[in-house]
């Protein structure tokens, strides 16, 4: 029994800290808003969400606490008494922490001290909400009770489900279900049926053709960005996902592509006004060459160094672009404007619909490229280097040349994305090429599924698409990324859609 209380203590303290931090960063308000959204109620800005939504949010947190605390123990027998004890103690400890904080801040409210001088995310209204609109004492008691009992409920629920179904954990069930659906026997056999494939491709093509015309320029912009990030993800995947060399400054190649393209097509500062396609090709080439040049001296050093050098390189580029020194060549901090849009046979097709088509085509091309590379001799060499470079070398792979190729190709793909990005916005400046872009791409590749093409699609949609839908979480986006990276490396480093090796022996019979 003592162990149960211990588990409850640990879980409760952790969740208590999480709830307190959530309160301090204002996420309690956002959480309540999200809950409201689930019920179709949107909270207008500058108003607090309804108290019942907040209560529901806290109940959810409490239930989760209880579920974790009541998890099947390894040392003790799994009895309902143990589960409930763990649950209620977890709830009590987390409730205690929340109550104390609530009480303290309630006191601040009564003394009319505004916490926003030092903690700008907490407003007097958010404190009031945290205390359910009651006085400090009553409010803190209420939150204590709420958390305690919802944890108890969560614990009983999970124990009940466990003893009847053998269901292990909700979180793993969720993540496995996506992979399960994609890998199920029916799905795979369906995918292999020739006719089914053709039909699916036709349907898919139809969707791709029709949607951009119908959903309006806002969504074209959003999904255009998603498309560009898919391209970036596929590019980073080559050097980091397959060849296993971490690159932090990936945005450097994005910048080379964007700026080469822009400088060649914009009226100022150089007035070269090259053809869109020529400039695009040159942008890709320039990016690829920059990858080659960086790789030459660094790639036979240890893997970590490439990551740092690219970081340094990316920052150097950004600072130099922003400085006045290079303004004569690169238009300085104001950026380059009036970059050309694409033209086909003289006719410019610059509408957002047409550009969306262009991005879709680019995505398809890069995906095709990536797919062919993945299972080729070159792709296998990359993966071998990733798994065990020494042995890869001993089997005859020139690791240096192979890695150099991977980096150059990755850089070239980034250049493509950069040029397209600049062309679509008809503008590019040093702030478009901040480190954040690199971090976004790393996140989407890792979270989606490292080394796996469908995973990258998933990651890009989640990373760029979801925030549009969940507008409320805008300010917390990066925090969630950070947590996601840490948690996923611990629990599921291969990503949501892990890469799977092809079944070559089984299929060899069919082809022969």
């Amino acid at each position, binding site marked *: 029994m003592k162990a149960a209380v211990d588990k409850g203590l640990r879980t409760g303290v952790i969740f208590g800290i999480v709830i307190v931090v959530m309160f301090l960063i204002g996420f309690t308000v956002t959480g309540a808003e999200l809950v409201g959204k689930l019920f179709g109620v949107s909270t207008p800005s500058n108003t607090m969400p309804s108290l019942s939504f907040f209560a529901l949010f806290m109940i959810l947190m409490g239930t989760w606490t209880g579920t974790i605390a009541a998890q099947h123990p390894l040392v003790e027998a799994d009895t309902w008494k143990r589960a409930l004890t763990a649950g209620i103690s977890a709830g009590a400890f987390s409730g205690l922490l929340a109550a104390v904080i609530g009480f303290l801040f309630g006191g601040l409210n009564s003394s009319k001290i505004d916490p926003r001088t030092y903690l700008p995310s907490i407003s007097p209204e958010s404190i009031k909400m945290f205390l359910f609109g009651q006085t400090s004492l009553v409010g803190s008691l209420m939150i204590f009770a709420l958390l305690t009992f919802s944890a108890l409920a969560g614990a009983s629920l999970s124990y009940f489900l466990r003893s009847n179904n053998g269901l292990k954990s909700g979180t793993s069930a969720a993540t496995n279900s996506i992979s399960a659906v994609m890998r199920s026997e029916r799905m795979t056999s369906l995918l292999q049926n020739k006719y089914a494939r053709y039909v699916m491709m036709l349907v898919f093509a139809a969707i791709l053709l029709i949607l951009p015309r119908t959903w309006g320029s806002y969504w074209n912009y959003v999904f255009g960005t998603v498309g560009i990030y898919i391209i970036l993800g596929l590019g980073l995947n080559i050097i980091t996902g397959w060849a296993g060399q971490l690159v932090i400054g990936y945005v450097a190649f994005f910048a080379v592509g964007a700026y080469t393209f822009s400088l060649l097509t914009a009226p100022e500062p150089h007035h070269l006004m090259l053809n869109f396609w020529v400039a695009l090709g040159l942008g890709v080439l320039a990016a690829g060459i920059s990858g080659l040049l960086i790789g030459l001296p660094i790639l036979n050093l240890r893997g970590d160094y490439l990551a740092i050098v690219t970081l340094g390189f990316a920052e150097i580029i950004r600072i130099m672009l922003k400085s006045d*020194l290079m303004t004569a060549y690169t238009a300085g901090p104001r950026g380059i404007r009036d970059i050309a849009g694409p033209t086909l046979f003289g006719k410019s097709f610059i509408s957002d619909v047409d550009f969306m088509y262009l991005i879709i085509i680019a995505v398809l091309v890069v995906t095709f490229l990536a797919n062919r590379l993945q299972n080729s001799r070159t792709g296998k060499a990359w993966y071998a280097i990733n798994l065990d470079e020494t042995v890869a070398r001993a089997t005859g792979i020139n690791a240096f040349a192979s890695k150099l190729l991977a980096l150059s190709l990755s850089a070239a793909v980034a250049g493509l994305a950069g040029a397209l990005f600049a062309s679509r916005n008809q503008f590019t400046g040093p702030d478009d090429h901040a480190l954040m872009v690199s971090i976004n791409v790393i996140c989407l590749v890792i979270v989606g599924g490292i080394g796996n093409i469908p995973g990258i699609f998933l990651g890009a949609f989640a990373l760029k698409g979801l925030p549009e839908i969940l507008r409320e979480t805008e300010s917390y986006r990066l925090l969630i990324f950070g947590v996601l990276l840490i948690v996923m490396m611990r629990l599921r480093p291969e990503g949501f859609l892990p890469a799977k090796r092809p079944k070559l022996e089984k299929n060899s019979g069919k082809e022969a």
Partner: protein
Amino acid sequence: MDKPTSTPAPGKLRLGRYLRSFAGILAGLFLLWRLYTALIVDQQFGADTWVRFALSGLILGGMYALIAIGYTLVYGIMFMINFAHGEVMMLGAFGCFFTFEALRFIPAPTLAIPDLNFLDAHPILSVILAFAVGISVSATAGYFLEKIAYRPLRKAPRLILLITAIGASIFLQNLAMLLFGPQRKNVVNPELLDRGAGWTVIVSGNPVLISYTGIFSLVLSAVLMIGLYVLVQRTKLGRAMRAVALDKNTASLMGVDVDNVISKTFIISGALAGAAGVMWAIHMGLVNHYTGFLPGIKAFTAAVMGGIGNIPGAMLGGMLLGVIEAVGPAALGIDFQLKDVIAFSILVLVLIVRPSGILGEKLSEEKL
């Protein structure tokens, strides 16, 4: 069977070695040209300005050195780059800020000055408190970082560890931003340590200020560096740390509690970063969530420059980088806007020309 293929022609690998030295010579010549132009031809700055630059460089260098030691300690013991180390320093700086703010609101009236606050009344005590708080916060952060994020991944491939470190860095940065707001906070020093106060020295006819905060930071940095060196070379813990850095398994067979030593290493590296953070807050005066980012990367550059894994190297690299960064833009005739470029360029250059650093990297040969 096929005949043996002929010996492959000397490829890029052979060329690479000469490429390195060639790049080094090129860079060296470029630097010499810029130095010549700036120092001999233009002569824009007088000796007093140089002294001012050198001084601020040394002070900055001391802080970089402390942070760099943290990187090198962790790398030596776990072969990972602790990307979140800059954020650990930032937390220390915040610790100092909040301590000063809190002490400012405690009234300590005297007969002469009725509205005196604690901070100004007891400056020395306040500073000590600030350091205590800052160092504790950072050390604790380092401890939990290791315990929660890195320890479970001890056996994982390096890529995973690096990504976790990046995740931790992003997390801490954004947590600080959400908690404390993105605005930079002004650190109000006790009156005694006012940023403008100090001794004045006349150099070639012009006054040069040697600020109290600056000297204080420099002296404290030196003390901490010496302290750390003694710790690593002379104490039992230091011996254990060196053993674990050389060969984890053997050390554990010899009775060293490896987990404990690694924990303590993170605590120490965090403490040093925290001290640097407090110094930063006192001397530079502005703190926000982003404060740790640039110094973090620069300190890492310093560690690599000195030879990663090498503690005296980190100290040397830190001091050197500080001075180069302060003196560099003027000496090379480059715009001051580009001063960060200097640090990054050094990083790239060092890795290209001499990746083992000035004092050499402690590598363990990969065993088959």
